[in-house]
């Protein structure tokens, strides 16, 4: 009995998968959910920030579904833990694309995880909206990015520190694509603007002992510190040990989010951050977003941040692209994505520049209570030539 019942189901799903691959189209009936895969680091280095990202995606899906969904179909989230690393990402992407057969991937992840997942994206031919800031120049016809790259984030920080009179810089990062990419760009930009890099050091992503690096920093004569670690745990250990060692240099952190800063308490005070989103943005869209988050999650709310808000907006961007394309067909959605504009908490955003997006950047300083005060803002900063060959 069981055998005869399972067999046709398997055959049917294999058949439909074959057809879907052959034609590149999904044969979904009206009313079938559109499935959004979210591979994200619920464990590992990203575990501090990942819950806020999932919350933002949940709110976006709920709001879109409350208005009747997309093309009459509801959205559905499929969240998978990628353990913040390459090995976990391979599994998460494979299972989302080939087992769960999601229509799109929208996620904030480490660069290691994104790079490990991209081959599966190419094979499975699904659109992939990457919602984390990153080191730049990751190019694929399937990949769209609505968060910042070094060309958008670093100049505000260095310009500000230069204006404060700092000319000697020390750079500290985690040893992975993002950490090195950001700091290489920072070093270049510092040299171009007449500053000097007096030292740079990296620790593996799971490293916790910054002792030697901090001692090198203290003896280097640096006037300002710029760090770019993996989000979460490395950021926390580095900041704790810096403060423990009495380092009080101007300190710009290219990878800290507001939520982590708030949780770090007094240790985070004075840190400069450069971001496309801070909760203090004064706009109607941001106020409405923050109210809706509070109403939905109440006590459980994780502070919305520069990683979770792009996730929220990316769900709307995908929904708009599907509406425009009239279908979830990958080719049509990819053609529509650079043409749709989303008005979200960060303002009007279009992924029109070689699959990347011009963004308004904010330079903020962490206050004693963990909130971020906007020191200055920079309108529609261009991401530059990210993918000229697309």
């Amino acid at each position, binding site marked *: 009995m069981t055998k005869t019942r399972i067999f046709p189901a398997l055959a049917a799903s294999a058949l439909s998968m074959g057809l879907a691959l052959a034609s590149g189209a999904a044969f979904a009936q009206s009313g079938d959910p559109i499935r959004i895969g979210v591979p994200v680091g619920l464990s590992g280095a990203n575990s501090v920030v990942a*819950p806020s990202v999932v919350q933002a995606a949940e709110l976006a899906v709920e709001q879109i579904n409350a208005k009747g969904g997309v093309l009459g179909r509801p959205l559905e989230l499929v969240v998978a833990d990628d353990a913040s690393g390459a090995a976990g990402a391979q599994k998460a992407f494979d299972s989302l694309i080939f087992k769960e057969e999601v229509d799109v991937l929208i996620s904030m992840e480490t660069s290691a995880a994104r790079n490990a997942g991209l081959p599966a994206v190419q094979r499975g031919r699904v659109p992939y909206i990457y919602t984390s800031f990153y080191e730049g120049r990751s190019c694929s016809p399937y990949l769209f990015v609505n968060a910042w790259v070094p060309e958008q984030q670093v100049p505000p920080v260095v310009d500000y520190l230069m204006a404060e009179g700092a000319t000697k810089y020390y750079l500290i990062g985690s040893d992975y694509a993002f950490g090195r990419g950001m700091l290489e760009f920072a070093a270049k930009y510092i040299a171009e603007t007449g500053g000097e890099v007096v030292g740079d*050091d990296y620790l*593996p992503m799971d490293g916790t002992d910054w002792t*030697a*690096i901090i001692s090198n920093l203290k003896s280097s004569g640096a006037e300002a510190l710029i760090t770019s670690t993996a989000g979460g745990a490395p950021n*926390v*250990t580095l900041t*704790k*040990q810096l403060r*423990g060692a009495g380092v009080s240099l101007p300190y710009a952190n290219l990878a800290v989010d507001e939520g982590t800063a708030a949780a770090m308490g007094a240790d985070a005070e004075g840190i400069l951050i450069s971001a496309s989103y801070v909760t203090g943005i004064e706009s109607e869209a941001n106020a409405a977003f923050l109210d809706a988050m509070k109403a939905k999650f109440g006590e459980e709310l994780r502070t919305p941040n520069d990683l979770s808000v792009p996730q929220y907006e990316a769900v709307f961007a995908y929904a708009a692209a599907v509406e425009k394309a009239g279908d979830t067909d990958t080719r049509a959605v990819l053609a529509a994505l650079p043409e749709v504009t989303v008005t979200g908490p960060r303002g009007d955003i279009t992924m029109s520049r070689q699959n990347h997006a011009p963004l308004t950047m904010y330079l903020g300083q962490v206050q004693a209570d963990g909130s971020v005060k906007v020191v200055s803002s920079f309108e529609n900063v261009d991401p530059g030539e990210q993918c000229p060959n697309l």
Partner: protein
Amino acid sequence: MTLALDMITTAAILFIVASGLLAIFGVLKIINFAHGAWLTVGGYCAVVCAQAGITPWLSLPLAFVVGAALGGLTERFIVRPLYDRPLDAILATWGLGIVVGQLITLGFGRDVQFTESLLPGAVSFAGVDYSLYRLFTLAAALVIGGGFALLLDGTRLGLSARAVIMNEHLARALGLDTAKVRAATFMLGAGLAGLAGALLSPLTSVDPTMGVGWLVGAFMLVMAAGSSFAGLAVACLLFGSAQVIVSTFVSPILGGITVAVLSALVLRIRPKGFSNV
């Protein structure tokens, strides 16, 4: 001067982390792979104190007591039946470590927790500004090391423990309750692991896997130390210093593997490690 302080305090932190493991290995001749888990439990004791608004200093005795209590239960129900099968004991404690890690994840979630700093800021010490807390870890390591010396040389339990270390069969034949010595040692070792976790919490982030990275280093040090505390102190000083020197002058990435590489080398050349020091 900073370099010297870095070397000494790194050695002190390694000693704090490894001492509980060595205590158990020395007397029971088994490697307690749940050591990392007890360390994590200790870290979460600091988290609980921070959440309850209690002074973080209380987290130190709390972590020791919680670790010792859990160690007592582990010894009675998991390790005791496996004394004659040291390899199975490794598997059992390793598995226990995974279970404890998952229970912590269930209770507190996977993400990084934050604790109160015990001693924030830096002090001027011997002409340089240095982290007050790292200096404190040096004192803590000396207290733990001194405590062990006193315990082994000055108490009945220490005498019994030394007898068990030297020749367990003979000790039992002479009427020593070796089971009790084993249980007490295991509780002490697990308690020290918990204490180490609480002591580490101001230096590192507290998350369900915090103990794993430390376990490997501690295991290597204990192997190199043999079963003597003096050996452990020497191993920590040598390898900790080497780690700092490599990190400072070569690369912090290579520094991270220094302890493991040196331990392997030492054991290759001197299978007994530093146990005769």
